[in-house]
């Protein structure tokens, strides 16, 4: 048990820099999830903490002690490798016994060892496999064995590298639910790496989003979901990913600022603070999560952004229907439970104001609209604008809703 703190952690492989000065504090017993796409440096972060990467700069502190120059076997950390790294010549039982026999994880009598191994294998549902060799296991079983080799021992920090990635979907969901309940997990500081945003949101006390060796945002699951720091974070969370529309800031005659999508179909009022970072006429990105859009039946509410368009594609995915809607030339993805929607239908979509996100336009977002066509921008991370929630700060919701409706209608 112990806290973990990284200061200016950098790592490189040959000429490639894998980590650019990571700063992170993980409290004692906290479950911290690092989320990022392939090659973002997630595994390198874990290996740096474990002392397995040679060219590391910066400081790693475990339980307050500086780990610079400390050998991996003296750090008292346990790691589950993505490649499992089970000893091929040892059975599951012997693999799990390995950390207990090393003498650096406390002293365990043979009886205590087998008792501890029995506990862990039972928890992980691999008790019946204890006599098997890794080559006789399925990938999911191997992965659970690798996880078991971590859980079986006490450690200051657990480092878990995508420990659920090779399980089939149902087992993964079940394991995800179980993982946090485990006593070992609740008591031990854990650094958990994944590329699955659902795992990150479900498991993490806090989540850090890693991109190209830099931490883009660190926050609670609610924070990274509701207030993504930039478009990269916004697009990491959610499936289908967030709609992003290239838009332009403009002054509104009634006073105030509005962001209007370049094709004119969407317009929202922006908080005044936006003007601090983007000049009128500057480019911004509007973001709306597909699940925040609702298909409207009945009267248009005044307190919501309203989009009107034609359904170009309706994919039925069981209970949900994924819609592609053409809103005045903008392709909008929406997810609804309304099974009646058909392709070619004209629909009205609404979204609460506080669910509309506003980002600074990246260098690319002001360019041709082709980027906007397939879901908005590249991964050019536009910073989140306004600091606070956008909807709360909107000065002219009603008029803008009207303007959006009007311009949307005008394009038809």
């Amino acid at each position, binding site marked *: 048990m112990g806290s973990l703190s990284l200061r200016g952690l950098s790592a490189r492989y040959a000429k490639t820099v894998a980590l650019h000065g990571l700063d992170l504090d993980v409290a004692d017993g906290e479950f911290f999830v690092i989320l990022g796409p392939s090659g973002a440096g997630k595994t390198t972060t874990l290996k740096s903490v474990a002392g397995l990467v040679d060219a590391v700069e910066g400081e790693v502190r475990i339980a307050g002690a500086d780990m610079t120059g400390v050998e991996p076997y003296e750090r008292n950390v346990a790691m589950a490798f993505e490649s499992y790294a089970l000893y091929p010549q040892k059975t599951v039982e012997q693999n799990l016994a390995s950390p207990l026999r090393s003498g*650096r994880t406390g002293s365990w009598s043979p009886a205590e060892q087998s008792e501890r191994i029995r506990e862990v294998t039972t928890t992980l549902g691999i008790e019946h496999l204890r006599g098997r060799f890794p080559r006789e296991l399925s990938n999911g079983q191997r992965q659970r064995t690798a996880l078991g080799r971590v859980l079986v021992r006490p450690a200051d920090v657990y480092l878990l590298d995508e420990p659920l990635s090779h399980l089939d979907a149902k087992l993964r969901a079940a394991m995800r639910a179980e993982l946090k309940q485990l006593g070992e997990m609740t008591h031990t500081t854990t650094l958990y790496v994944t590329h699955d945003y659902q795992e990150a949101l479900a498991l993490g006390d806090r989540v850090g989003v890693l991109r190209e060796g830099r931490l883009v945002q660190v926050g609670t699951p609610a924070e990274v979901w509701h207030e993504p720091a930039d478009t990269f974070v916004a697009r990491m969370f959610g499936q289908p990913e967030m709609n992003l529309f290239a838009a332009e800031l403009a002054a509104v005659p009634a006073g105030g600022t509005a962001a209007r999508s370049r094709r004119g179909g969407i317009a929202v009022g922006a908080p005044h603070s936006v003007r601090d970072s983007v000049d009128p006429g500057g480019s911004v990105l509007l973001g709306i999560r597909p699940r925040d859009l609702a298909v409207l039946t009945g009267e248009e509410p005044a307190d919501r952004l309203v989009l009107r368009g034609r359904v170009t594609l309706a994919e039925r995915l069981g209970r949900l229907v994924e819609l592609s809607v053409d809103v005045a030339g903008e392709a909008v993805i929406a997810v609804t439970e309304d099974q009646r929607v058909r392709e070619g239908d004209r629909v009205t979509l609404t979204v609460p104001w506080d669910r509309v996100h506003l980002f600074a336009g990246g260098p690319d977002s002001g360019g041709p609209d082709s980027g906007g066509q397939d879901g908005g921008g590249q991964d050019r991370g536009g910073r989140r604008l306004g600091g606070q929630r956008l909807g709360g700060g909107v000065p002219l919701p009603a008029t803008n809703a009207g303007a959006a409706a009007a311009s949307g209608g005008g394009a038809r």
Partner: protein
Amino acid sequence: MGDGSRPGGRQPAKPAGREGHSRRGGKSSAGEPQPGQRRFSPASVGGDLVLLAWFVFSLFPLVWLVLLSLKSESEQISTYFEFTPTLRNFGTVLSSEGARLTSVNFSEALLTSVLNCVGAVLVSLVIGVPAAYAAGRWQYRGSGDVMFTILSFRFAPELMVIVPLFVIYNQLGLFDTNVGMIWVLQLVTMPLIVWILRSYFQDLPPELEQAALLDGYTRKRAFLMVALPLVRPGIAAAALLAFIFAWNNYVFPLILTGSGHTPVTVAVTRFLGGGGQAFYSLTAAAAIIAALPPLLVALSIQRYLVRGLSFGAVKA
């Protein structure tokens, strides 16, 4: 004679195969070859003949060696294939009679060779396995150059270094000693073992040892506990190859040993005589005896060898 026997030998299999096809297909197509069925063409027959000729050419010396070893002294140069076979040559080679003819005791030479080669391989393993591990795991500035230098010991002609070695050995008192031979055979065995085992270690995922480190084992224990057991097939293959190369080495013992510690390779050639009569049949018998130990070693570790030679050669 080749083209008479080979197509004839294949002929019976062909109709049988076609029968199987037609039975499965339910209709007979006697004249037309099935898809994928082998057909004779001048090119394929010619190709087979070339292979057959090469086969005979490359194996004939061995056949001739065996025939020669079975001939009596009077028949050794006067007969080809018709003679009265005898095993007396093998006895002569190993007895004091052979020692009298060549001034080298062949049995002792066998023992010397075994000592030299086993010793050389053991020394190479003790030094070479950790070296190969280090070379396979850690890249540093100039690591490629170091490996190339080690390899260059292997392909540099032995004659290039033999004269200075002779002088050095004489001055150090290593001439005609087992220690001296074991030492010089490192030039043969060490590069082989380091290079073969390096690729084995490279094929092992480094995560295995990293996992052992995090389990609380030191680097040395991680190596002994995890990496070493996994390359055992490679060690067997590399050790055998090194043993054979050391066994077959001729130039080093020819120059660096006298009559006291002559190994078999040199002892065999003594039967060809030095000015006196050349005992071809005795030479052949000695050569066959000399070839047996590596053969026995190879057979005894065959189980490891087959896996070992293929594992590591191909990257997965």
